[in-house]
């Protein structure tokens, strides 16, 4: 009631503002489509995506490279008319509910079945697909074969064996495991749940409202207090430096570090999924993929969709180049992943196998920021502060339940 009128006057005010600002001709016809990427760390990616965009003949495309806090910047820009037409992101249910992104089901065509189902699921809400996966990233456990041999440690296949291995590998100034400067609170929370057969959210219900969850997170606390974790390194878990510099025998990091590790250590390393804890649990690797999306506020949705179709569906050679020529990602299309020679052997081949057998979405669309904050806070307090796990997780489960109720009724 009050809202409508207030809003109208607000809209009037902004129209006035727009009239005041002399228009420099941004927007309008004949202009380039705006495409956004976050700043990839690997050299060459920026040049590559610019090259792709230039090769598109139907419409000019301006590529914009965004360093820094990409998520916040994107979120802010999508609220106004100044945002990009096409951008890469992970899918969030909130964007779908707010009508910020456009369904892209018709863009896929026959190629749909060629995309890995588990990856496509991370871009699907209520049966519609909103993002075309560009590159699959995953995290796993890297270990030094020589250090394992020297300490007489076997590859851990359960969480208890992992804790034990980490302790025994801590010797001669080398720590057992590096899982982030916060002791694994941020990246191992999900794997810990999966190791016990639990999950973030399952069928619109809280997935970790179970006494076993406390036990699983308790294992992370055990690791943290064992003195075998490296903490406070210069570079965080996403970079391989602690591992390649020999500061640790194991590190939790991503597939993207494989080239750097290969260069530094040759064959002296192997990879594993996060092991299982209980008999109902399973080993796991967190998997995620940035997808190309179309801004619903774009004035040229159809042109934007056509560009996305051309770039990420039609031009399979670009997908191959994008995934394999710079850093190290798995192409989301099975037909490309299968014929990639770079992925046929060694750690990369293991990674492909883990993604096939043990993939869990690292950031599912309905795991909202409120839920994530509540869960990560609880894990942090248990792991780093020794707070009682059952209470903390119960609190987080309550928050998640409220949020799910809001989303699904």
């Amino acid at each position, binding site marked *: 009631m009050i809202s409508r009128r207030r809003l109208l006057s607000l809209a009037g005010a902004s129209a006035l503002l727009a009239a005041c600002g002399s228009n420099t001709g941004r927007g309008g016809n004949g202009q380039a489509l705006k495409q956004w990427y976050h700043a990839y760390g690997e050299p060459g990616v*920026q040049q590559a995506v610019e090259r792709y965009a230039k090769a598109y003949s139907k419409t000019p495309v301006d590529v914009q490279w965004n360093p820094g806090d990409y998520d916040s910047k994107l979120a802010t820009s999508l609220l106004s008319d100044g945002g990009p037409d096409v951008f890469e992101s992970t899918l969030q249910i909130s964007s779908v509910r707010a009508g910020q992104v456009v369904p892209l089901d018709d863009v896929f065509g026959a190629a749909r079945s060629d995309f890995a189902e588990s990856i496509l699921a991370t871009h699907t809400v209520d049966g519609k697909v909103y993002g075309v996966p560009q590159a699959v990233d995953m995290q796993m456990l890297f270990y030094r074969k020589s250090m394992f041999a020297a300490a007489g440690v076997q590859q851990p296949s359960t969480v208890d064996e992992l804790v034990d291995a980490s302790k025994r590998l801590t010797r001669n100034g080398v720590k057992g495991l590096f899982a982030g400067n916060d002791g694994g609170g941020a990246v191992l929370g999900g794997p810990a749940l999966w190791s016990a057969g639990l999950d973030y959210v399952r069928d619109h219900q809280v997935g970790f409202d179970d006494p076993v969850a406390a036990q699983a997170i308790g294992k992370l606390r055990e690791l943290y207090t064992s003195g075998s974790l490296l903490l406070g390194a210069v570079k965080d878990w996403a970079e391989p430096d602690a591992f390649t510099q020999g500061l640790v025998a194991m590190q939790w990091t991503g597939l993207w570090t494989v080239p750097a590790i290969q260069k530094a250590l040759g064959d002296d390393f192997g990879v594993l999924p996060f092991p299982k804890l209980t008999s109902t649990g399973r080993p796991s690797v967190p998997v995620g993929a940035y997808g190309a999306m179309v801004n619903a506020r774009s004035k040229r949705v159809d042109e934007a969709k056509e560009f996305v179709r051309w770039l990420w569906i039609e031009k399979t050679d670009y997908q191959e180049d994008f995934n394999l020529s710079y850093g190290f990602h798995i192409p989301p299309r099975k037909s490309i992943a299968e014929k990639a020679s770079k992925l046929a052997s060694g750690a990369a081949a293991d990674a492909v196998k883990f993604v096939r057998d043990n993939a869990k979405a690292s950031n599912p669309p309905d795991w909202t920021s409120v839920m994530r904050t509540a869960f990560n806070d609880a894990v942090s307090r248990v792991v780093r502060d020794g707070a009682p796990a059952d209470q903390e997780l119960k609190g987080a489960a309550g928050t998640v339940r409220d949020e799910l109720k809001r989303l699904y009724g």
Partner: protein
Amino acid sequence: MKWLRYLALSITAVLFLLPFYLLLRNGLATEQEIASPTWTFWPSEIHWENFTELFGNPAVPMVRSMTNSLVIAVSQTFGQLLLCGLAGYGLARIPYRYANVVLYLVIATLMIPAAVTFVPTFVVVSTLGWLSDLRGLVVPGLFSGFTTFLFRQYFRNFPRELEEAARIDGLGHWGTYWRVVVPNSKGFFAALGVIAFVTSWNQFLWPLVIAQDQDSWTVQVALSTFLTAQSIDVVQLFFAAAVSITPLVVVFVALQRFLVRSVVETGIKD
């Protein structure tokens, strides 16, 4: 007693200079030296090529972004001095029924964190079509309640005799301000100018969101490219940080006597 004072001051001074030393040491070393468990006081070999590497790095347009920062900081500094100076004088010296209302509205803005109104401000700016545009980076920062408030405090203590002399010469408020008040307040303008320049040069969140094209990046945004998730080049990061503060350090050393003198003159007295 005296040597004790000097000792205390010297120790503090060393602590205060330590971070500058670290910036230089880390920026001119190699990554191995920085990560080494044994401390090296100074890089065994100065790696000046870090300089050419940084400025030659196509992914981080250092020259362009420093130029942008300079243009933005200079226009924001002069714009603030002009607008806030006038407003401060009006609030301090021109009797007007609603002057106090305006003053309270200015003071109230000091308590509201910018991060709070950040998103609506962004929407206003984007509605004006000022994204990736110099105007979007400069204009919203011109209306500083803090600067206006300081000006107002200062002008309240400006000697009335000088103004009255000008008044007798037939000058109105406008003439008095430009011919008498401003020329006699150069030091204070310089002081607030330095503060405005520093604030502008160092701001981060706003240019990060507004400066969307690489061509409109500021130096702080360029710095943050080194911090992106997948590969931090620690040496270049430190070197770039050192480069980014150099202009300010120069300005400070050159202008700080103005600063101190004029803070003495201001009204952080009521």
